[in-house]
């Protein structure tokens, strides 16, 4: 036995206080992380239900399950819930909240009450949106393009926009909290270049969220004002410009894509060194590539409007910049693979998800380059090719990393181990199900199947059936972890403080940690982050 079993600490953050109110009024970042985990899981399965309905409808070339109008609402609601109520808050709200204060050696985030307020604002925004969705839904697509959203749609556009507007404040406050925490709450000796890459990536992510979310908020305000007062802001009949809406929306939403994947990269950068028993290759390059993604990510939004009447010169500039943003992403992929190379790799569940992430993110990223190419984009614009591309990033990337991270830190969060065999099996199911769902969609899109249609020509049916089959397998892959993690929370075997023998301050605390994270404020004396060489020597001494 390498790791000595720590004496069981009587009090930890989970059992120090009990009762529903102790959870609803908590300012402990770890408990708030659990509140977020609960909420986003609910939203994930609501969004997943809409996806499942869409896939069932697409089994047949004709409308057989839902009407075309309902189908429009299904893909809109799927997008709204998954983007704003799962993907963007997922890793920051749960793992970010739990880990950032621990990784910097602090007792809590900089503003604990604000942190709790964020969760309440998030739930209020979610409540308003869900109200809009179940009252009759929205049919504009998650992008709310004008003038359809302002003038023609007869659905609950304003209510949905209000929900997203409210949730935006939660995102902003969480991001603000993280940046302040990382700047001013680091333990003695923990300089910037000793921080785990998780913290660097979450920092870059928070900067993006602080700068882009207010723009979405004000764009939605303008949309609502135009719709409520029937005045011209984006309506061309009243002197407005509908493409201006697209510019403002994508100025938010393209960086928003990076705020979905930067936290995923944060998780992968922790898992890969821990299961390769090697320091992360090119630490500074990986750290600065997060910053580069954040900066360049703000300059590429125009590639969503190549066919929307954008001038050829700005299209060229946006195309070029979109190629540039692939460079820092590629730096990360190369550094992760270089870390694995020559390491003593163990294939535990978090590592399986990490490997899956690297492969799928690479496919998603490379097909993004296809879409940034001016000529090819005209051919595949608004087809299933685009859908497949961004699902490889968001589902193959972000969701895989989220699951990997949840498994990796589960012993720390819950103090229990999850069933390893079952977890490996479901990681495999997720991987197979994901690829079967989305790879056929690349082919469909290339052959010309447009997105957002409930019916389609018969020659596409085979590929659609394959995709639906994959979606059901993927669904099983998502329900399994939900079941065994809840089981493990109660019946799993007790976890040691550091079951993966990983570096990082969070592993220096007990599992689960005490309310104030550390018995004494840690002082960092290590020369390097991810010092697995030193740890190897230490273990040999033991």
């Amino acid at each position, binding site marked *: 036995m390498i790791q000595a079993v720590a004496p069981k600490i009587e009090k930890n953050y989970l059992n120090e206080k009990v009762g529903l109110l102790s959870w609803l009024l908590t300012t402990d970042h770890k408990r708030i992380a659990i509140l977020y985990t609960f909420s986003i899981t609910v939203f994930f399965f609501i969004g997943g239900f809409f996806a499942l309905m869409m896939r069932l409808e697409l089994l047949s070339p004709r409308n057989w399950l839902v009407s075309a109008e309902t189908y429009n609402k299904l893909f809109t609601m799927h997008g709204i819930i998954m983007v704003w109520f799962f993907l963007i808050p997922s890793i920051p709200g749960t793992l970010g909240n739990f880990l950032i204060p621990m990784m910097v050696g*602090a*007792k*809590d*985030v*900089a*503003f*604990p009450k604000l942190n709790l307020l964020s969760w309440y604002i998030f739930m209020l925004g979610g409540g308003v949106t869900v109200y809009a969705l179940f009252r009759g839904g929205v049919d504009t697509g998650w992008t709310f393009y004008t003038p359809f959203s302002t003038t023609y749609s007869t659905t609950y556009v304003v209510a949905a926009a209000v929900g997203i507007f409210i949730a935006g404040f939660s995102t*902003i406050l969480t991001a*603000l909290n993280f*940046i*302040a925490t990382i*700047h*001013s*709450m680091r333990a003695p000796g923990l300089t910037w270049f000793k921080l785990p890459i998780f913290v660097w990536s979450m920092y870059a992510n928070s900067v993006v969220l*602080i*700068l*882009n*979310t*207010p*723009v979405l*908020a*004000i*764009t939605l*305000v*303008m949309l609502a*004002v135009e719709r409520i*007062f*029937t*005045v*011209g*802001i984006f309506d061309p*009949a*009243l*002197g*407005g*410009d509908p493409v*201006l809406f697209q510019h*403002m929306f994508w100025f938010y939403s393209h960086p928003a894509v990076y705020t979905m994947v930067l936290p995923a990269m944060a998780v992968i950068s922790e898992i890969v060194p821990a299961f390769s028993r090697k320091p992360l290759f090119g630490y500074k390059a990986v750290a600065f590539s997060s910053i580069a993604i954040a900066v360049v990510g703000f300059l590429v939004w125009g590639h969503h409007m190549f066919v929307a009447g954008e001038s050829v010169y700005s299209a060229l500039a946006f195309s070029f910049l979109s190629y540039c943003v692939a460079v820092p992403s590629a730096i990360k992929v190369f550094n992760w693979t270089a870390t694995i190379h020559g390491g003593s790799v163990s294939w535990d569940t978090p590592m399986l998800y990490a490997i899956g992430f690297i492969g799928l993110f690479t496919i998603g990223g490379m097909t993004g380059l296809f879409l940034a190419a001016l000529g090819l984009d005209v051919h595949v614009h608004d087809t299933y090719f685009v859908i497949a591309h961004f699902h490889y990033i968001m589902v193959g990337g972000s969701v895989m990393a989220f699951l990997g991270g949840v498994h990796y830190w589960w012993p720390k969060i819950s103090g229990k181990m999850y069933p390893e065999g079952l977890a490996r099996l479901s990681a495999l199911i997720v991987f197979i199900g994901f690829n079967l769902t989305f790879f056929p969609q690349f082919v469909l899109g290339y052959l010309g199947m447009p997105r957002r249609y409930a019916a389609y020509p018969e020659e596409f049916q085979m590929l659609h059936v394959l995709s639906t089959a994959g979606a059901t397998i993927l669904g099983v892959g998502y329900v399994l972890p939900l079941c065994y993690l809840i089981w493990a929370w109660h019946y799993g075997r007790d976890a040691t403080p550091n079951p993966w023998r990983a570096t990082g301050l969070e592993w220096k605390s007990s599992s689960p940690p005490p309310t104030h994270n550390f018995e004494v*404020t840690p002082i960092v004396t290590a020369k390097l982050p991810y010092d697995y060489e030193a740890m190897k020597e230490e273990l040999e001494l033991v």
Partner: protein
Amino acid sequence: MSDPLVLELREQFATPEQQRHTSSIGIWLFLMTEVMMFGGLFVAYTVYRFNHPQAFAQGSAEMDIVLGSINSAILLTSSLTMGLAEFSAKFGRVRLSGILLFTTILIGLAFLGIKFTEYYEHYQQHEAPGVWFNHVGPHAPEVQMFFVFYFLMTGLHAVHMSIGILLLLGLIARNMVGSFSAAYHTPITVVGLYWHFVDIVWIFLYVIFYLPGLHK
């Protein structure tokens, strides 16, 4: 008597200096988000003024330049009293600081009063956008668009002013129970930064709404 610094130190911080530094980071980050939020409106205004220069000049000519200028002077004065409130707190003159905060509120309310007088005038002249709008002459939809941005942007500004006044009331209440001292007055600094930011936004609003119609 216990040290007020220790009383005001939140449990997550090790030192008062760390707490002050963290608050400062927090408010500056928050102001960044405000810049981006108003920034979105400024971008849209700029695009449309570029597209419809004549209509925007026509709309701007309907502005009450006298009231607008008086209001600008009033608001800048409120920044002065706000700044002096922080300054006097720094030297431990907390009573004076409270009086200055109260003066700032009064000046802020005067600004809002004049602003709503202007709104009412526009409403009476059928210049409020929507069903109330009735403009004869060329470029009517585009002139309406000018007023949409006028009401939206100055309205958002007025919302920020109102929030600022509520925050100032909170400061006065805390000041009365003796929370502030020469050593601890961070909340006054933080609210002061917010107040000055809202002032600066007004300077830009004054320029883009009141001045384009002057040299028609």
